[in-house]
């Protein structure tokens, strides 16, 4: 079995699966159960400053969207940071770390954007024996109204400033957690880097309203007739998270900065995808809130098996493996030509490809009297919509045309050379091809 041992900015854990700062990590009882279940690390639920803790609503904190059979696809929350006293959390963290020295224990922190506040809390956290800190610049609800969370994460200058304070007042590695509720994730990522961050973690939750109650005309989750936007997470946000991780991983200014990948990680495969796109480890929340801590067993066995199949002996060999293949649109090869092909043995004749192509795309699928569906190469632009709507996996595939053959749609011979938009004759600002 592959060795899943992880070293993330010097923080060691037996596997790259951490629990994200969230309700599952709010207290000792849960965290001990998580470690017993096999989680490699835990980012403790965000700590606030000393004094009376925040209060939470006493109605629904979560909203959701579901797929078939009520499979939870997306979760939204309006829970705030920990509503337990700071000293209780610190005491519990210390006890847990003492009993699980091989696991990673990270403290998530959110205090006002004032140097004194950060300076005050850091020694207390350090005293617990925690392995690092994560700056919560991400939560988009509640705390943001008070000038914290995503309100900081949306201002690169604040990120840089607070990161610098933390680097100044603690020896612990500093991970900056980024909000996706911005226009371009590179600005906050670069700010974290300028501030001296050891790593960034992303994404935090996305501002959202999960649904509207059509009887009471209020958003869900609804508290006594009113609702507010909350943070969206779970499988539905994974594509957004993957892109933001990849953007940071391939950006020259941030490429060398470790990333803790977060956002809809539910299975080993999700985790492997984050790692391949540049994450050094992953953090999980919604999946355990849906299925419990035990899922880490599947993640461990799945990632090991996959790494064995790829003859990878350490997680590092997977990290960034796909980054070189993430590029800009203008670098895509416009000489590449593919055509859809339908495997008639696998086809169950549902006709969804036909409806999609005929109604909404290129009229490139023919339907016979006996419900045989075939691709019309003269019309097919290989858009992949038929593949995406086909209920049978691998029934329709996109087959590249051989160089030298003629594309019946354009009448042009498929050119074996690579050519992208930057040199295309239709591009007004094309640079001349050599």
């Amino acid at each position, binding site marked *: 079995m592959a060795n899943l041992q992880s070293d993330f900015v010097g923080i060691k854990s037996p596997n790259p699966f951490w629990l994200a700062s969230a309700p599952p990590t709010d207290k000792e009882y849960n965290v001990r159960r998580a470690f017993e279940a096999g989680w490699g690390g835990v980012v403790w639920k965000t700590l606030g400053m000393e004094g009376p803790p925040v209060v939470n609503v006493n109605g629904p904190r979560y909203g959701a969207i579901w797929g*078939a*059979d*009520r499979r939870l696809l997306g979760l939204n929350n309006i829970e705030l940071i920990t509503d337990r006293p700071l000293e209780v959390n610190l005491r519990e963290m210390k006890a847990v770390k003492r009993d699980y020295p091989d696991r990673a224990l990270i403290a998530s922190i959110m205090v006002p954007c004032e140097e004194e506040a950060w300076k005050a809390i850091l020694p207390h956290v350090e005293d617990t024996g925690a392995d690092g800190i994560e700056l919560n610049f991400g939560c988009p609800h509640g705390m943001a109204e008070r000038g914290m969370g995503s309100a900081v994460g949306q201002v690169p200058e604040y990120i840089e400033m607070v990161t610098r304070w933390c680097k100044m007042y603690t020896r612990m590695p500093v991970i900056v957690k980024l909000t996706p509720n911005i226009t371009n994730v590179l600005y906050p990522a670069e700010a974290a880097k300028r501030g001296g961050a050891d790593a960034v973690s992303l994404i935090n939750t996305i501002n959202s309203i999960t649904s509207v109650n059509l009887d009471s005309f209020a958003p869900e989750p609804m508290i006594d007739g009113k609702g507010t936007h909350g943070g969206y997470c779970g499988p539905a946000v994974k594509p957004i998270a993957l892109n933001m991780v990849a953007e940071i991983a391939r950006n020259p200014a941030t490429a060398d900065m470790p990333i803790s990948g977060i956002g809809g990680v539910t299975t080993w495969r999700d985790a492997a995808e984050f790692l391949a796109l540049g994450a050094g480890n992953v953090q999980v929340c919604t999946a355990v809130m849906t299925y419990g801590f035990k899922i880490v067993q599947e993640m461990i066995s799945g990632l090991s098996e996959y790494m064995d199949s790829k003859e990878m002996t350490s997680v590092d060999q997977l990290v960034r493996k796909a980054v070189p293949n993430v590029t800009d649109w203008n670098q895509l090869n416009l000489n590449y030509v593919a055509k859809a092909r339908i495997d008639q043995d696998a086809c*169950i*004749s*549902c*006709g*969804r490809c*036909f*409806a999609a192509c005929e109604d909404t795309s290129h009229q490139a699928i023919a*339907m016979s009297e006996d*419900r045989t569906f075939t691709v019309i190469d003269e019309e097919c632009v290989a858009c992949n919509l038929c593949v995406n709507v086909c*209920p*049978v996996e691998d029934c329709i595939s996109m087959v590249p045309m051989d160089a030298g053959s003629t594309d019946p749609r354009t009448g042009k011979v498929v050119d074996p050379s690579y050519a992208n938009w930057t040199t295309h004759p239709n591009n007004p600002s094309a640079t001349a091809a050599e």
Partner: protein
Amino acid sequence: MADNEFTPGIRAGRLEHGAYAAQFSDLHPPLDDHEALVAADRCYFCHDAPCITACPTDIDIPLFIRQITTGTPDAAAKTILSQNIMGGMCARVCPTEQLCEQACVREIAEGKPVLIGQLQRYATDHLQQQGIHPFVRAEATGKTVAVVGAGPAGLSCAHRLAMLGHDVVVYDARPKPGGLNEFGIAAYKTPNGYAQAEVDWLLQIGGIRIETGKALGAGLTLDQLKADHDAVFLGVGLGGVNALGAVGEDKDGVSDAVDFISELRQSTDLTALPIGRDVVVIGGGMTAIDAAVQAKLLGALNVTLVYRRGRDRMNASPFEQDLAASKGVRIVTHAVPVAVHGNGAVREIEFEYVDATMKGTGETLRLAADQVFKAIGQTLQGDGLPDLDGRKIAVTVTGRTSVAGVWAGGDCASGGDDLTVTAVAEGRDAAMDIHSALMG
């Protein structure tokens, strides 16, 4: 000591009194909301869906299932009922495994079709249990139409005509409407008085008058009906039963399966309904299966269904055959009855095995029997009917007969299978044609 399944003869109350309700409860219990959503979610919403083509009434199945998925089962019911006013009964009695569900692409892909029949029931029950009738009558046309037979064909025709603004009188020989839905289908397929409830619901459209105790030759003549109305629709079904042609078939204990089923359906106390210990049912159709299974459910010890050809030739679907087998009915094939033995009442029935060409083999089989049900097909009855095509009334695709102004549909008419759903389709289509004819 009370009678039980071992008591010889034709006896009532073979089971514990409390057992009957469970024996005759719903064959397929209704889906609850979540089950319906899960089942509905499996529908692929196929383009030009094969299930629609397979449905004799052309219900837009993908659309109604999508309406269930989106939490609007009443809209789904309207989609169903606008094509098939008896969609509730068809959801219960249709051989879906040979119609829509056989055509379902998931049947082809996985051998597990979308549960179209049960979803149809979910939707129609949802609407009907609220007492909602979603159709309204068009402005009165002043035309009247006579419908003979208050079965699926007649009621379907009557509803459509009433909706189009015509006034309809429906005549039926039986004391209540419903036809085979009420008198001829196994109880476990339509429990809790659904057949009558559906008729009551259907009649909410208005403009339909039911007159029972009247039939052609029993108070009605085709000429008089034609004279009194602007059009006539015949949906009289098949009232006669074929004879066995075996020696001794007039002995006590030998009766028609349709009568047994009717008696059972009309019984208010199944514990009082007698059944033999050793029951033999002769035939291979739905009626034979319904009689055999219900005999078993009533507590018969041995029930044997004997059919003259192979299983593959039985009109009863493989599902129905398996149902019978699962209830403990023994199915004997390639045997024809030659003699009923017994002194006054049947004691044994003798069969001869036949080959694929129906030629006798000389090999025989004798089965102990204290009750024999004949279910070897029904026949059209009545005098002065329009021209026949073989043994049924000849009709065009829209149900026109050889007599001007007279339409026919359902089991009594040529064309189509003898199914409830086919009868509903034929009644509906004839109504549309009558409407065009009357309105010019």
